[in-house]
């Protein structure tokens, strides 16, 4: 039996990797991937607790997060394509105006 703290530590590590990537990467796609990493770090802790306490709620929550993440990926990637077409760049520090 792997103790739950190990899962949680892995979850926190994934989340922190996501945060750091979100903060330091310039490329919008990498930033986007970092967000996915954070979401999945959280998902991991959900399933870990669900398994620990034999409750199904956590598992269900994970499905919701995955649905939202999928939707977000679809919309987000579409936005990224639109931004790239308009600006010819995906460097986040150069996309700082809300108008074209």
């Amino acid at each position, binding site marked *: 039996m792997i103790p739950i*703290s190990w899962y*949680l530590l892995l979850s926190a590590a994934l989340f922190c990797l996501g945060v750091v990537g979100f*903060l330091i990467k310039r490329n919008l796609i990498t930033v986007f991937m970092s967000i996915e990493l954070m979401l999945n770090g959280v998902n991991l802790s959900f399933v870990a607790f669900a398994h620990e306490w034999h409750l199904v709620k956590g598992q269900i929550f994970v499905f919701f997060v995955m649905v939202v993440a999928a939707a977000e990926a679809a919309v987000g990637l579409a936005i990224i394509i639109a931004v790239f077409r308009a600006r010819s760049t995906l460097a986040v520090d150069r*996309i700082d*105006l809300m108008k074209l």
Partner: protein
Amino acid sequence: MNESLHLWLIPLLPFAGFLINGILGRRLPKSLVTTVALLAPLGSFGVVLNAAMASGAALPHIEAFRHSWINAGALHIDYSFVLDQLSLVMLLVVTGVGFLIHIYSAGYMAHDEGYARYFSYLNLFLFFMTVLVLAGNALLMFVGWEGVGLASYLLIGFWFQKPSAANAGMKAFVVNRIGDFGFLIGMFLLLGTFGTLSFNVIAAELAVKPAWTGGLLTAIALCLLIGATGKSAQLPLYVWLPDAMEGPTPVSALIHAATMVTAGVYMIARTHFLFDRSPFALLIVATVGAVTAIFAATIALVQTDIKRVLAYSTVSQLGYMFLGCGVAAYSAGIFHLMTHAFFKALLFLGAGSVIHGLGGEQDLRKMGGLRHHMPITFWTMTVAVFTIAGFPPLAAFFSKDAILYAAFLQGTSGKIFWFIGLVTALLTSFYMFRLWYLTFLGERRAGGLEDHGAPVHARSDTKLVLESEHPVHESPWSMLGPLVILAVLSIGGGWIGIERFASYLAPSAGPLSVEAGSASLEWTLAGLAVVAALLGWFIAHRMYSARPETPERLAASMSGSYKLLLHKYWIDELYGAVIVKPILATSRFVLEWIVDVAILGGAAWLLGGIATLGGAILQRWQSGNLRSYAAWLTAGAAVVLLYVLWAYSPASLSAFFNHGAGH
């Protein structure tokens, strides 16, 4: 009485006319506009006549609407119309004379672009005037009071393209505001004293306390008097009326001679139970009336604009009515109000006919010899001139003598008032015959007589001054018809006699007490008045017919007093220097620069500065840089996390982890 007299129809019909002509008038054909405009006052007149026939002895008839107007604690004010003898007489005058003047206007204004607008305003005036007359409480009366002021403003400034007309309208409005202020204060005092504004309730309450005189009642009466002096153009607030002659002449006849300006007299008669309890207030009313009567009559002596002569004459005649009210002879005042409505409307309409026929000329010095060109206007005007001069058996002879007789019976002060009234009658006779001679007799002086230093008020009253060599012509029958009817009324309007009139009015306007007098005294006074009128005629004849060069010689030999009268005692200039200029200066320096620029502007500048500064600081967070937002977000999340950790003591957390690690 159970049956309804449909009093609400009386104001509502003109209001409907106002709405139809005011909204649709520009698109409707002229004949339809005329029909609507004339049917409205005719309908009202019909309802009034019906009420007069049906009511009989059942007055006062009170019609209150189911829903009250204001309900606030102990304060109840409803929409109530009261038809009593006083309001019935007034309504007959207002709607009857009003209807005649509507007919006249159809001819007079036929060529004006603003035909529909004119009639919608005229109907609006009738609406508010009938509300004023019918009102059963002071507040509803005030609605009508302000409304006729509005209609007066709109009609004085009817030709608003002319700056003088627009200014005259504003002057009338502003001067009336001063009077209205007094009326309002009077109403507040009434509310504070009686807790109600209903005339009937106040009268009933005073009736059960016969010993209550003076004091607060004097204050209320004087406040109401201030309101009355504003609306009825008495000293010191008369200055707007002569300028109001900028409006179309039928308007001058209806609003500024026959009806609206008598509202002050009507209001005093309506609240006579208050004035009766305050001898001091009555003395002030009589003094204001007498002084105004002679003051305005002297100004009228030298005016050269036909309408201005009549305007000052109106002020003077209104002074008579105030004098009548001031000696507690309210029914005599109302009697004169009625006859004055007939003959002064006739005078104005006749003057309008003259102006119309001359293509807009208003200067007396350029008229003359018109009796051959305008015979009907001439004869009807002659009736009016003889009436206002006070010759028997014409209407004003009876009403004027009733006032003078009532004044004479009021002790020493009454004798003084009587004498002033008698001198005024002499002056009135003189200036009216002067007008008569200059306009109709002698030879035509068009473009003749040179200007001897007088301000020429040669304004165009109508839009008919297209060709200056307009041939003199008699007016159409739509204008002459009302003249003839009014002439008949001016002749016979006084035959009812003051005794019968006063006894009819007694339930609503108080009895006329003439116990101290005798028939022989009355005849003597009447004889003296006729002598005064004859004397005025004689002097006018000497000066303007027999020896036309006399007026100029006289003016030259008494240039000081002549100039004083010609410039109307410099009252306008005095008010300008004493009241208008300081107010303007105060507005400019205190209100504009200190209050507006310094205080309000400074406050606005300070608020704006704070907002700008706040924006300058806060906008640093809104860099638009995604990664700085993310950094703030992370930092915020970290802070929240640390707070949670700290709140759920570290011990429990470490216990949790130890527990987990223990597995």
